[in-house]
């Protein structure tokens, strides 16, 4: 990416932060908090998710057979099924069916995907969106910014001035109530007059030809009931085998999306329905002659089904939990974090599949891989993995010359032409090794104004961001000189402390503290020389390099595992590599061996204390107030409580943050195009640690990025929690 491209991207993000950010943030957080509350009430949440996923896996596997079955079922009911290859094919068919008549539509992202409104209007039909948010966008001539709440970026005040300007009502509209009443009446007349009702479908059952529509307003019901012809458009992936299969989705979709236990209406229509229609003479007409057309849309989906990495996208039920739980989405919304149609975490998969990689490329880098969406997805899609794979494909699609500037820094497995910035951050291990070898000179050069300007211009490292300061002596070198202090015979356990690149070369103090804390608890520690985990290249979409890093790490740690020692990891994002991502990068046996023997540092301390280690060997917190920020990947792994428990057991008074992510997210916060978004997200965390209740507390954070971000945004200097337990 050129300097100008970066500047343009930064400008666009700044504009959206200023104009849409507040509305998006307020609204997505209501959904997000609602989801946490509503899913906590489910006794069998995990089992329900497993069931939902199994149904989708099975349905996508058997998709061609289900298309045949639903065709039989719908035709037996008296309706028609049309399988459309692509958007043009679907629009041609729908336009023929509509034949210039007036159409009322309920919300459907699939219809946005094919842009059917434009095609119908070109053929002379009037088309009205009856979902209130879609209606607002239709009046404003804007695209959706969220897959469930398409006008989430608009405030009530903006909608009021839009309506007052366009419709010029007798009394200016102001309250949400007035706006809703106005839209209801305005659209009510359109519904009365229209002859065609168009809907999407959240699910379609192959056995009976039943459409499940998940809504709250009632407009979809009206669109179907009032009109003589019902046209439903749905991606082929919406098929499930039977009516019974709808049950887990009905219980999960509202909770996952807007945080409601269930939406006002889940309509199960087996069309054509015989509810009375609105005839022209003022009487209710007979619904017996209602026509029904189900348009099943391929538009790239059958190819996605054959694609081992994109296939999971087809399990998506478009609930928006991945968008709502994403810190970046919360701050900038779908007009930045989305492609032609779809927005939020899973949008990369959809856009890559239906519109192509170019559409996905525009926003793909906004996924930082923080993984907060992973546990929120009701069908357990590994969304960060899809984002990484697509990033890798985008990287590989580019042509260009390997730049001489970073050639020495990039002993990687990637194709020539890969973006220089990605290559720099992806090879952080090499950079850190050199930085350490030439410290303090390297730190001095990197901080010089000339150095910063060069870095900003060539690789887009934002000059407003403080750079890490490399230590001359690495943690591994320090430990080699010092040696272990607990003899194997007296040791409670033996561990290999994994020296991640940051701990090894930059934040050596937390590594030394970790060694001393473990030794105080009678653990014999070794610090083997093991390279970077692969997190750095992985986050840049450099999957081949990540795999080669993972293999080296495994080779370095395998002897310890074979000897029955435990692996202790300080950096949560590296532990997440071992426990999650290595499944994709290492042979299965190696992955399982490493996963089963690896522990996060404070998780391990917790385990030691639970199993009889002498807690009094560690300092007494004596009621000291602590404000603790866990780490996004650590929270996804369920490892926040252990740190809190250990600190509380030692007498610290702990309060925690609840933002999804700090916004720094590895290299993300250093990139000049994303710097302002990173700081905007970080401010939400800083706000939580500068309240009356938290302003005087000692700030601790588990992750490197979190520490860097908090350091930049707070006047207090944050530290890793293990430093509070350091016996030194």
């Amino acid at each position, binding site marked *: 990416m050129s300097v100008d491209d970066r500047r343009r991207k930064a400008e666009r993000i700044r504009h959206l932060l200023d104009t849409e950010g507040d509305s998006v943030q307020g*609204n997505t957080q209501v959904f997000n908090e609602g989801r946490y509350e509503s899913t906590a009430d489910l006794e069998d949440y995990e089992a329900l998710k497993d069931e939902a996923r199994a149904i989708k896996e099975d349905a996508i596997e058997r998709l061609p057979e289900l298309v045949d079955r639903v065709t039989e079922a719908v035709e037996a*009911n008296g309706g028609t099924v049309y399988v459309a290859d692509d958007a043009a094919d679907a629009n041609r068919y729908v336009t023929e069916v509509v034949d210039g008549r007036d159409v009322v539509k309920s919300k459907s992202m699939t219809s946005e995907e094919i842009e059917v409104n434009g095609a119908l209007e070109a053929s002379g039909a009037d088309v009205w969106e009856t*979902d*209130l*948010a879609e209606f*607002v966008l239709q009046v404003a001539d804007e695209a959706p910014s969220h897959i469930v*709440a398409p*006008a989430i970026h608009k*405030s*009530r*005040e903006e*909608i009021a001035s839009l309506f007052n300007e366009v419709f010029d009502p007798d009394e200016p509209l102001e*309250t*949400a*109530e007035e706006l*809703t009443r106005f*839209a*209801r009446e305005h659209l*009510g007349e359109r519904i*009365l007059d229209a002859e065609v009702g168009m809907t999407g479908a959240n699910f379609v059952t192959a*056995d*009976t030809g*039943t459409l499940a529509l998940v809504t*709250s*307003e*009632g*407009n979809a*019901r*009206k669109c179907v*009931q*009032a009109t003589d012809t019902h046209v439903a458009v749905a991606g082929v992936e919406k098929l499930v085998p039977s*009516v*019974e299969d*709808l*049950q887990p989705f*009905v*219980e999960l979709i509202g909770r996952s999306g*807007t945080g409601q*236990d*269930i*939406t*006002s*209406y*889940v*309509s*199960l*229509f*087996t069309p*054509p*329905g*015989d*509810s*009375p229609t*609105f*005839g022209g003479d*003022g*009487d*209710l007409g*007979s*619904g017996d002659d209602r026509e029904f057309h189900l348009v099943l849309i391929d538009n790239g989906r059958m190819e996605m089904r054959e694609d081992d990495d994109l296939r999971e996208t087809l399990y998506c039920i478009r609930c928006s939990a991945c968008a709502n739980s994403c810190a970046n989405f919360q701050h900038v919304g779908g007009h930045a974090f989305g492609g032609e149609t779809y927005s939020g975490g899973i949008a990369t998969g959809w856009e890559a599949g239906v519109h192509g990689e170019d559409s996905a490329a525009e926003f793909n880098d906004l996924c930082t891989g923080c993984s907060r969406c992973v546990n929120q997805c009701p069908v357990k899609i590994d969304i960060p993995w899809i984002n990484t794979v697509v990033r890798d494909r985008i990287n590989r699609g580019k042509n260009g010359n390997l730049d001489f500037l970073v050639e020495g820094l990039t002993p990687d497995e990637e194709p020539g032409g890969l973006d220089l910035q990605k290559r720099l951050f992806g090879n952080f291990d090499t950079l850190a090794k050199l930085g350490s070898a030439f410290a303090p000179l390297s730190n001095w050069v990197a901080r010089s104004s000339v150095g910063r300007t060069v870095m900003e211009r060539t690789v887009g490292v934002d000059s407003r961001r403080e750079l890490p300061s490399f230590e001359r002596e690495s943690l591994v070198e320090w430990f080699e000189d010092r040696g272990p202090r607990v003899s194997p015979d007296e040791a409670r356990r033996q561990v290999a402390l994994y020296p991640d690149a940051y701990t090894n070369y930059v934040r050596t103090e937390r590594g030394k503290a970790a060694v001393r804390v473990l030794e105080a608890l009678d653990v014999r520690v070794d610090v083997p020389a093991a390279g970077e985990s692969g997190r750095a290249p992985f986050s840049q979409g450099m999957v081949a390099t990540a795999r080669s890093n993972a293999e080296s790490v495994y080779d370095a740690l395998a002897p310890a595992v074979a000897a029955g020692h435990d692996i202790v990891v300080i950096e949560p994002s590296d532990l997440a590599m071992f426990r999650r991502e290595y499944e994709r990068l290492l042979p299965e046996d190696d992955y399982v061996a490493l996963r089963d023997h690896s522990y996060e540092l404070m998780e391990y301390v917790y385990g030691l204390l639970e199993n009889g280690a002498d807690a009094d060997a560690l300092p007494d917190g004596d009621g000291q107030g602590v404000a603790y920020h866990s780490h996004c990947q650590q929270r996804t792994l369920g490892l926040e409580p252990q740190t809190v428990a250990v600190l509380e057991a030692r007498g610290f008074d702990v309060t925690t943050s609840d933002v999804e992510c700090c916004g720094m997210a590895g290299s993300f916060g250093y990139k000049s195009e994303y710097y302002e978004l990173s700081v905007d997200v970080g401010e939400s965390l800083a706000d939580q640690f500068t309240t009356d209740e938290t302003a005087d507390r000692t700030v601790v954070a588990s992750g490197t990025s979190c520490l860097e971000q908090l350091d930049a945004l707070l006047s207090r200097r944050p530290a890793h929690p293990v430093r509070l337990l350091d016996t030194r």
Partner: protein
Amino acid sequence: MSTEPLASFESSLDEVGVELVRTTADRFESALAPLVSTPAVGASLPFEDVSLPDAVETDPTVAELDAADTGVTAAGYGIADYGSVVIQGGADGEEPVSLYADEHVAVVAASDVLPDMDAAFDRLAEDIRGGTGQAIIATGPSATADMGALVKGAHGPMDVTVVLVEDR
């Protein structure tokens, strides 16, 4: 049937802002009267010895439907866990009657209150395969937050009341 689903039905309805009125067939008319404000529309009820008062128009014009304060229909069953009623039916006008009036009164037999979504989907699947073309799982009033705050009655009713007939 055990009283447990009924108690849970009542508390779930309360959570979604729906009043539950318990009655029996012989007291149905007096129980319904205070819930019906005219003009009112309705779809005939399928319960023996239970019928709608004359004030309720069961064959409305479009204008009468649009102007109605109250719409009364039967519900095929209730789902206790969620406080939902399932609105079935077709040609008799259950759908427009339950959708256009400001207030929807849903009449459900106590014996048709099912404990949870699992039980409801067993029944739904059976009904759909048996030819029921439409089943709306309706929970509370119509609502939207699209205009900047939660508003009831976005397109459908802004109030819902459930009348439970206990000797069925």
